[in-house]
């Protein structure tokens, strides 16, 4: 029983991370029907942004007050990357056959990974992420469960981000503009909504959450590397589809479900095909099953027919 609860805790942590990234896929997809394949890289760059902020400004410091500034640094770098990416690479391709943006996305993905590897000092191997008071350190023991401190941060970050996001989408003019564009871009444009601006905001929003995810990942694993975006991105995409792509609540639910499923699979699939060696395989199998049998996701996607 403790084992089971422990896996739930682990799953929720992992799931919160996936959810933070998945929102980016879903927001962008909901508005431009584009799978921004390079979103995993935005997440990775967020982690490096946080590390860079710490290295430049606070090297050696471990106070909790450093954390918000690191997050801010991460968000800035990620948002900048995402916005530039949208402007330079994706916007000119709007209306092109679907193959074009997808291949562009692969190109951006490889480019960003390599750029970090080559130009971030020391990034050719793993870099250790700073220890911060309160959110890292020995786990908290609750009722026989061991809860990582960074896990608390991750889940908390998701809760705060989700609340802010909900407020933004439902209670601000821009958020409502975003909903309008996702319903019908042409009409929204005729109604005087600046569609390009909304799209940029969607990219920025996703990037900001992914950056928070990047910081969380750094704290959880206490190291980061330039490849971390690929797998995380793919799983987060699974989460987005699982929840129903284009559906923001769905992305969060999907992330949590995927995280828990993955933890459970690692722990409870018996025999040789269980364990951590196969956990990514099971995640991918789940991805395929979801895409094939429930492409509209658990909570329903905005658009299913993609003829």
């Amino acid at each position: 029983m403790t084992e089971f609860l422990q896996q739930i805790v682990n799953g929720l942590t992992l799931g919160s991370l996936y959810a933070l990234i998945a929102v980016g896929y879903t927001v962008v997809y909901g508005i431009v029907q584009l799978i921004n394949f390079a979103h995993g890289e935005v997440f990775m760059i967020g982690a490096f942004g946080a590390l860079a902020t710490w290295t430049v400004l606070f090297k050696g410091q471990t106070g909790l007050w450093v954390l918000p500034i690191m997050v801010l640094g991460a968000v800035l770098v990620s948002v900048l990357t995402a916005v530039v990416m949208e402007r330079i690479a994706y916007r000119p391709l709007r209306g092109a056959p679907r193959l074009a943006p997808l291949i562009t996305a692969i190109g951006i993905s490889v480019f960003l990974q390599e750029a970090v590897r080559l130009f971030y000092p020391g990034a050719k191997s793993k870099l250790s992420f700073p220890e911060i008071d309160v959110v890292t350190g020995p786990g908290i023991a609750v009722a026989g469960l061991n809860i990582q401190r960074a896990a608390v941060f991750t889940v908390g970050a998701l809760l705060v981000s989700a609340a802010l996001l909900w407020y933004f989408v439902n209670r601000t003019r821009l958020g409502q503009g975003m909903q309008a564009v996702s319903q019908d871009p042409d009409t929204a444009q005729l109604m005087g909504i600046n569609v390009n601006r909304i799209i940029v905001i969607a990219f920025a929003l996703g990037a900001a959450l992914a950056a928070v995810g990047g910081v969380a990942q750094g704290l959880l694993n206490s190291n980061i590397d330039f490849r971390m975006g690929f797998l995380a991105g793919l799983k987060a995409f699974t989460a987005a589809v699982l929840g129903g792509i284009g559906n923001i609540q769905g992305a969060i639910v999907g992330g949590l479900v995927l995280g828990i499923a993955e933890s459970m699979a690692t722990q409870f699939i018996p025999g040789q095909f269980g364990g951590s060696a196969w956990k990514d395989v099971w995640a991918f199998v789940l991805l395929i099953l979801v895409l094939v049998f429930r492409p509209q996701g658990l909570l329903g996607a905005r658009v299913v027919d993609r003829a």
Partner: protein
Amino acid sequence: MSTSTPSNPPTQATSVAPAHSDHDDELVKVHWLDRVPGRGNPAAWPLGLAGALVLIAGTFLSWSYTSDVLGDLSVNFWPGGVQICMIVLGLVALVLLLAHRGPLAGLGAWLDTATSVRALGLGAVAYMLGALGTIAVKSGGIININPGGWISLVGALMLAASGLMLVSRQTKDPLFAKTSSWLEICTIIVLMALVLFGAAYALDVGDGASFVLFLLFVASVAWGLSKAGVFTWIGLISQKNRQVLMLGAFAVAFLFPFTQGGSDENMSIATQVLIFAATALGLNIVVGLAGLLDLGYIAFLGAGAYVGATLSASAFATIDWKPPFLIVVLLGACFSALLGLIIGSPTLRVSGDYLAIVTLAFGEIFRLTMGNLDGNNGPVLTNGPNGIPAIPDLNFFGFDFGQPHVIAGITLGRFANYYFLLLVIAAIIILVFTRLNNSRIGRGWVAIREDEKAAEAMGVNVFGLKLFAFAGGAFLAGMAGTVKAHHDVSVTPDQYIFLESAFLLAAVVLGGMGTVAGVLVGATILKLLPEKLRFVADYRLLIFGLVLVLMMRFRPEGLVASQRRKLEFHEDDEELAQRIEEVHLEEAEAKA
């Protein structure tokens, strides 16, 4: 070309030939060229002639004081390879100038000579600057550049200036040039010989700088000739004489090992290019013809390779059955195709982007599974991350692929042996590709790409055709994989990472979706350049990513584009559609 007789060209093309794709707004704005001082000056033509001659003359003198830079350029009247390139460029420029005005004017009526000379001139300047810069840097100072180099640079500058001053005339569209068929066939043969010679030369070039200069040279000449409109004509005649072209291409490919003088070093690169090209051609059926985006294609190559390895005589092979290799090839291909069916039959109903992700996930599952089946995390089948090493060479009826053989006095080493085998496989794939493309099935694929719903409403078996493309592509990749296992000697999971699939896709996209020549070009560029440009090795992937983005932005149809694909990527370009229709009508007429 000199025999071109203007027998009733349907329409006299009114626009200057090369202006089609470049700038639509050219007509509105004053072109920057019109602000060049001395534009239209009658002195431009003699200046160009003089420039070309000076350029050539300079190459016969020494360029460099030291003899160890860019080959040996220090001997008078004994031009080295780097200098010979400029002689060739100078001669091409001379011919074009003489066609512009003078004895070859009949030819000039068809070619936009002025633009072409401009391209050649600018290319020559870039080349000379590069060459002289390299000499200066490598041998420690500008002082080491000998007069010949300066003379050639002046010649190049004169040529460029002349090109900028010459004014394009209205030319007839080379599309409507009627040429005798022997001339066309000769052109194709010469072209093929040039390709063979160029490839052999390029592979032989030792240092990176010379190689880059050679690329610059090829690019300049190709740019110049395409500006002149020569490629339009070549494209048309290669359509008309397809058999000759195919035959020629295979003759060239077949003869290539004999140019290597028994050295296996370049053959090793060549076989890698061939494996890559053959796989990319298979992928081109899936992506280019059927329009399905497959991001896990490398897994099918891997499946074939693993079948080849586990059924081989390697001491590490885990299956104790050693069938003859031809059976292994079939088994590998069928196993791949089976995987294709298993993954394809449920997923091909989800369309577009989702299919890309599903195939990506499948590729990762394959790699991870191969890395796991080591006895600890599953049955022993693949030895996990260590893979299956020590796969013996193939042996066909006593012909040992591991041993060198001497044919016509030329030694052909291990890689040359594999090269011929791979050539056969590539030929099979090309045959399958072109014949399917040109059949009922091919038409069905185009219809699906154009409008899936309409295709279905017209009775096209959409799902069946997609599945066939998917499984068929897997079959071909599996076939290539079995040979790859023996060629590589060992099979490990890390040869089949996602990036390899991305590379394959890039070869297809870069070269041109739906064309054979395009994929061959793309595969060669992607495999050959990293081998030759060791000094950018670390930046290889960075450049690769950038190139993908730029290609999609500026030339999504690829370097050698299929006309239909070009149209699909430029839906609102009416001029292009009209032009392609003209090409079409010409071809139909030529067939009749």
